[in-house]
């Protein structure tokens, strides 16, 4: 009787372990999209250059005294519109881009999708 229970326990353990290992193997590799913060501070994008994965979210936070925006260049294919002091804006990034502040055109940044 005891022998039968031990065999049953061992069988259940083997099946569960097998299923677990199988599920690990067949589950596709997924990465959770990350969130990145770019501070707009002292009239600079900090960091000015950011490496991200496709699908990651970048959040720009305006910590300056004055309004800014975040605008793709050269085509202006996306823009935050005016961000007053203290405002933030986010974008799901799918491709690399150069961007600038169209209010203060000497302020520039770069997104690199790896």
């Amino acid at each position: 009787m005891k022998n039968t229970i031990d065999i049953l326990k061992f069988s259940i353990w083997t099946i569960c372990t097998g299923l677990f290992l199988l599920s690990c193997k067949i589950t596709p590799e997924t990465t959770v999209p990350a969130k990145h913060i770019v501070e707009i501070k002292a009239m600079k994008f900090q960091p000015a250059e950011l490496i991200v994965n496709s699908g990651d979210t970048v959040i720009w936070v305006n910590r300056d005294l004055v309004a800014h925006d975040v605008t793709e260049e050269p085509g202006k294919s996306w823009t935050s519109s005016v961000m007053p002091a203290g405002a933030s804006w986010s974008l799901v990034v799918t491709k690399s881009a150069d961007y600038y502040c169209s209010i203060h055109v000497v302020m520039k940044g770069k997104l690199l999708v790896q």
Partner: protein
Amino acid sequence: MKNNNFLKLAIAIVSVSLVMFLTPAYSQENPKLSDAEVASVAVVANQIDIDYAEIAKKRSKNKDVLKFSGTMKNDHTAVIGQAAALVKKLGVTPKDNAVSQKLLANAKKIKTTLNSTSGKSFDKAYIDNEVTYHKSVINAVESLLIPETENPELRELLQNVLPALKTHLEHAVMLQTKIANK
């Protein structure tokens, strides 16, 4: 043409005198300012550039100049707002003083000169003055206003304004080159 040369000379004279006044190394005496007087100079200096921007809005048709002047108006208005909120919090009343008065006197001359020009001459005169004005104000903030300020919050506000002034200068120099090459 002769008139144009006169305008250039007038702006140059006023601008140079402004730089000389605002640069302690050139002034006969390094003025001693209280925090209330520093606050007054800061507000006056910002308001002067807003006034120049208002003139540009009326007299220029150049889209780059109009956009730049709009930015000057918005940014300097934001700085005045921050300064006003801080002096209210600190219970300080900005106090008129010799530096504020001199700034206003020079600005009056420059505004008269700017108001007498139009078209491309105006655009050049306005941007040239913005370059000179921002250089002199940056110099004054770094070598006069920050060292003279005792209150740490007022000093911090002045330090926080410097990057904006330097970005304005960089933008103005870029426009100056663009206008000169047109």
